[in-house]
């Protein structure tokens, strides 16, 4: 982009034009992944770290061939980790995998049914990772006290859930997200729960710094078109927030002048 963005998203000192962060899971194939991510306009893209399948299709294309670290800021996650030790180990492997890149998405989960964050283990992992100079973007619940603690521990962004991961239920407790934002000195991003474009717009209209989503795009009938819809929703929501919405009124207020009517 040649024109300087006057309203960048700043995470750990780096500026981004897009406020939409996207995952790479659940796509039909790598081609669809690449096309959807390009259509979303996202610059920060999450990936998971898993064991390499030994002896199976060694020649198959790699995700990072499609989502190149030269073009995107790769955000490795700790999805699938249920305790602090596994999450820290995964982050260290990710840093080696990405040649010292130290921005990570920490998520330590509580159980498989809800994928709700285990806050005790999240705080433990966070402390260790910050000490080890990782830049931590942390997935958490919508508890304002916990969000503040994570910020004070040194997280570069705090990412409360809108609703459960992959549920598509939208932002169930906007009041808590508002309280979290009021107190925050680091970017607050809604992570998880967005189901459709209006959910993303609502988050941005409230003043969230950004939204991270995966399933809402990947599980759409046409993921590439949905990625484009989400890009617009995020931009519209942000502009709406900056513009400042009109106050709500109980009764009508005519838009056309009342004087000079005929008859």
């Amino acid at each position: 982009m040649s024109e300087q963005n006057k309203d960048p998203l700043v995470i750990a000192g780096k500026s981004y034009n897009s406020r939409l962060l996207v995952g790479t899971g659940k796509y039909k194939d790598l081609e669809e992944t690449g096309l959807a991510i390009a259509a979303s306009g996202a610059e920060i893209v999450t990936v998971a770290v898993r064991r390499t399948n030994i002896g199976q299709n060694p020649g198959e294309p790699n995700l990072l061939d499609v989502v190149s670290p030269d073009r995107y800021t790769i955000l490795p996650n700790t999805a699938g980790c249920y305790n602090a030790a596994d999450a820290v180990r995964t982050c260290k492997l990710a840093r080696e995998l990405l040649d010292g890149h130290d921005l990570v998405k920490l998520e330590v989960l509580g159980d498989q049914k809800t994928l709700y964050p285990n806050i005790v283990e999240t705080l433990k992992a966070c402390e260790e990772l910050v000490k080890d100079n990782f830049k931590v973007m942390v997935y958490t619940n919508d508890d304002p006290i916990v969000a503040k603690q994570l910020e004070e521990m040194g997280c570069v962004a705090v990412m409360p859930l809108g609703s459960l991961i992959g549920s598509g239920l939208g932002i169930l407790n906007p009041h808590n997200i508002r309280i979290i934002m009021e107190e925050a000195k680091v970017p607050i991003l809604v992570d998880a729960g967005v189901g459709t474009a209006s959910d993303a717009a609502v988050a941005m209209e409230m003043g969230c710094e950004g939204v991270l989503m995966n399933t809402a795009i990947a599980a759409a009938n046409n993921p590439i078109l949905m990625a484009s819809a989400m890009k617009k929703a995020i931009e519209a929501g942000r502009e709406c927030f900056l513009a400042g919405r009109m106050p709500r009124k109980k009764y009508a207020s005519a838009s056309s002048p009342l004087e000079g009517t005929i008859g």
Partner: protein
Amino acid sequence: MQIQVNGDSIEVRDGATLSELLDQLGLAGKRVAIELNLEIIPRSEHGQTALRTDDQVEIVHAIGGG
């Protein structure tokens, strides 16, 4: 000698290095990270790091996730 790679037993040459292991598995030049007995071995040291019997090796890569 036998070592464990991602939980499976694998036969490698006695004293093989991590680089040789990656070659043997068809993973040479691929973007992977390696942990040897729970310790991360940087890519630059794969060529000098010799394996021993019963070593536990984890090889990971990036896949789709949210």
